[in-house]
């Protein structure tokens, strides 16, 4: 049996995993990264629009700082996030982007003097300061007060991923691709590594480590229409869930993006609207200002997606072979802007739809409809990134729920989170690996490998049963139809019922080719039951949550219910033969929040069932602020008095900004 030992095992080689691996390797820990695909092909490469960091260099971002970014993130999350974590994040993001700049990410820079921009569908001239020339610039994105999203044209994820992967190579991190983690090795609530299948040879191997970190990205492929890459199947979260010990957090919190192109579901970045593009209906009418007079096309993602579906339901969609859709118009930005800053978007539209979005008028309009995009839920961890239940297991990036996005994540906050959490969690993870020894017996490792080996043999030995592909397709259809943008008790219940039945059937599916290597059907056969378990966590968590918060929208419970639902859903799967997860809840403590729950700023007021503590805490916060301001304290001191938080290394230090220094 092949067993590999290392100090730090990182599962997943996207932005989060690679950045965490750099953190451990730099501390002298022998680090191995495992990935399904060559790491530079990880899904992070597909991020287009940009990374949020409150640098405040460009004219439209002046006055930005950690406090503004924090406020946007908390509001964006519909108060579902962990505010400690959001604070840790906003203070580290400027450092993260500056580090990436040193690693060679060619961020688009500020150019002094006048340039044209389209704001609220009107051409405007903006004049950039001389002092800002050459610093990192930023664009507008939904749900943010300032232009905070830094970018490299519309290939931001690609350049970031190459920058971090190059750095990992420079640090001589041992990166191994075409390796799939099937399960975690654990004993007495401590994680010791993973059982891994080589996707070329089909061989099973054990990886034993002092600490294990999962950074396997999201679970978008539980859905039929998704912007996610085909490898985003949530198998990392499933491995954690199948320990029966680790818990997943808020799995029902799933984001739908407003503008994937129809029919392929390929994303057109939020940068399209950030840069001034607008949504239009069947009559060519710009409808978003009617629904959201203030934020218009740039309201939070969950809000825009719902408004679009509502508008389609009102009969204003554009009929097509692929169902009704709406139009995204970026032609108003002009050819020059599109060919420079939105080139991938143009390429996608030309290649897949034969439309040049720079063509003037309706000829350049792009067909769009909301689809699954981002997984706020994931492996539940403490702010250090360690599982609350299974020690030695860490997680960061989209795979985790540490939880900075709550029930809706802001555009540009995710790639930012990946590197920031890679820095922070990577550091806590390194400490854990330094403080712990490998204690597991060889026998326990062998048993874990044998268990997977027997499972694969059992699958190959089945002679009668149904195909696996239709089961997977059915799951994806159910998730789209019943666990989507609009949810209600009946549809969620029917989803839960049928998914349970599919889970039972999936465990009996047959595989036609009996070889162990290069057998794609075998891979489906062992992955689909795991995906179904996750799908059940999403659907069941959604059924039980009888309120609407952020992206979780219940037509039968329209209000955000702070009195009863200011809590995180935790799911665990202790009994492997069960068809439903065990569900428990974790309260959010209003009295510790820096910003207690309030009106989010979208739709009508009065859509919240208030928690009396919100007002109480608000009064407390106001009093502290007033007193400290009178005493002449600065914003850092006031923040510390309201909600102190910790960060490793020099990440807690202040960030310098143009014109204001460290103020």
């Amino acid at each position, binding site marked *: 049996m092949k067993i590999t030992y290392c100090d730090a095992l990182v599962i997943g080689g996207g932005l989060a995993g690679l950045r965490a691996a750099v953190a451990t390797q730099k501390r002298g820990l022998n680090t191995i990264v495992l990935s399904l695909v*060559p790491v*530079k092909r990880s899904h992070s490469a597909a991020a287009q629009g940009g990374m949020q960091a409150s640098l405040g260099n460009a004219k439209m971002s002046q006055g930005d700082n950690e406090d503004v970014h924090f406020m946007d993130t908390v509001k964006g999350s519909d108060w579902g996030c962990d505010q400690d974590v959001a604070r840790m994040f906003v203070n580290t993001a400027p450092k993260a982007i500056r580090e990436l700049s040193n690693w060679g990410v060619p961020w688009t820079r500020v150019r002094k003097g006048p340039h044209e921009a389209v704001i609220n569908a009107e051409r405007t001239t903006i004049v950039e300061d001389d002092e800002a020339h050459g610093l990192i610039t930023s664009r507008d994105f939904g749900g943010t007060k300032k232009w905070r999203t830094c970018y490299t044209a519309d290939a931001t994820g690609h350049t970031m991923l190459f920058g971090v992967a190059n750095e990992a190579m420079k640090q001589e991190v041992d990166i191994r691709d075409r390796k799939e983690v099937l399960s975690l090795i654990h004993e007495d609530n401590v994680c010791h590594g993973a059982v891994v299948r080589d996707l070329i040879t089909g061989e099973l191997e054990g990886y034993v480590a002092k600490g294990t970190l999962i950074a396997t990205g999201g679970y978008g492929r539980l859905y039929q229409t998704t912007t996610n890459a085909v490898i985003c199947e949530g198998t990392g979260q499933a491995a954690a869930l199948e320990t029966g010990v680790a818990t997943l957090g808020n799995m029902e919190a799933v984001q739908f993006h407003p503008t994937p192109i129809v029919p392929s579901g390929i994303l057109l970045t939020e940068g399209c609207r950030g840069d001034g593009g607008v949504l239009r209906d069947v009559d060519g009418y710009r409808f978003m200002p009617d629904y959201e007079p203030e934020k218009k096309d740039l309201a939070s993602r969950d809000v825009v997606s719902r408004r679009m579906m509502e508008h389609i339901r009102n009969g204003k969609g554009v009929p097509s072979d692929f169902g009704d859709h709406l139009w995204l118009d970026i032609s108003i930005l002009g050819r020059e802007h599109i060919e420079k800053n939105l080139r991938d978007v143009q390429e996608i539209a030309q290649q897949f739809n034969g439309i040049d979005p720079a063509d003037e008028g309706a000829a350049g309009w792009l067909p769009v409809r909301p689809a699954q995009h981002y997984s706020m839920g994931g492996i539940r961890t403490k702010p250090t990134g360690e599982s609350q239940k299974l020690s030695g297991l860490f997680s960061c990036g989209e795979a985790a729920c540490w939880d900075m996005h709550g029930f809706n994540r802001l555009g540009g906050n995710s790639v930012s989170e990946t590197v920031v959490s890679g820095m922070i969690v990577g550091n806590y993870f390194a400490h854990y690996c330094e403080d712990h020894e490998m204690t597991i017996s060889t026998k326990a490792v062998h048993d874990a490998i044998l268990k997977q080996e027997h499972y694969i043999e059992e699958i190959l030995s089945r002679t009668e049963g149904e195909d696996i592909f239709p089961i997977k397709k059915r799951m994806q259809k159910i998730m789209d139809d019943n666990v989507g943008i609009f949810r209600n008790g009946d549809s969620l219940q029917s989803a839960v019922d049928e998914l349970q039945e599919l889970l039972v059937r999936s465990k009996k599916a047959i595989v036609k080719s009996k070889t162990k*290597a290069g057998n794609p059907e075998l891979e489906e056969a062992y992955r689909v039951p795991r995906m179904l378990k996750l799908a059940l966590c999403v659907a069941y968590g959604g059924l039980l949550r009888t309120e609407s918060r952020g992206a979780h929208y219940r037509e039968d419970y329209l209000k955000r219910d702070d009195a009863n639902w200011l809590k995180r859903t935790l799911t665990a799967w202790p009994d492997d033969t069960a068809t439903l997860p065990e569900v428990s809840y974790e309260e959010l403590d209003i009295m510790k929040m820096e910003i207690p729950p309030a009106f989010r700023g979208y739709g009508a007021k009065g859509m919240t069932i208030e928690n009396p503590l919100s007002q109480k805490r608000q009064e407390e916060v106001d009093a502290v602020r007033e007193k400290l301001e009178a005493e002449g304290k600065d914003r850092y001191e006031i923040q510390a008095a309201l909600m102190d938080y910790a960060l490793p290394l020099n990440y807690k230090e202040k960030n310098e900004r143009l014109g204001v220094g460290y103020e």
Partner: protein
Amino acid sequence: MSKNESKGRELLFSILKYNPRDPESKPAFVEYRLTETPGMTLFIALNKIRDSLDADLSFDFVCRAGICGSCGMVINGKPLLACRTLTADYADGKIQIMPMPAFELIKDLSVNTGKWMEAMSKRVESWIHSNEVHDITKLEEPIDPDVADETFELDRCIECGLCVTSCGTALMRPNFVGPAGLNRVARFQMDPHDKRTDADFYELVGDDDGIFGCMSLLACEDHCPKHLPLQEKIAYMRRKLVAQR
């Protein structure tokens, strides 16, 4: 006609199947018939074949949007990203698909471009070389916006390998660093963060497996899905590095 309107035709696929790890497997073309659907790409078509006709067919896709560089294949003789290739572009409905040469074959249409690109990246030391210590709490170093844009242009390579497959030298000389490798050198040469000198780059690629191996056949640039100016950059690097001889 919009590209999404073609439909209903019967397509004939002919796909080279071979499993080098199976002693009994021999390379052979296998034919599949599929009904065309609107807007069909080879990503959709190959998955349909796998779901309904041949569960054993291996191929690689990740982003299915022309962004990640996973799906290079030789399609009717031309190296292309399969996910970006529409069946509607083939008037007679006959589509032959082969794996890309120049890379290690894993199985059927799946080749190990990752391994090749990793070796290339290590060879050209594809990372920033600098002894400067930066304090990340301070303002970042300003970079000329044009230089940042130009570095970005060269950073757009997605390591798909289409240029390598179309390169006469790369097919003849397995150690040739390839158009992608030479482009990578040009990228770091352009980047002000990287302090390497021309002499340093000469050390890395100043030989016939490097910059002097290129025969200027131009096929690389024709096939690059990101339209990188490979020819111009290779010529430029050659002029610079000749001076180092």
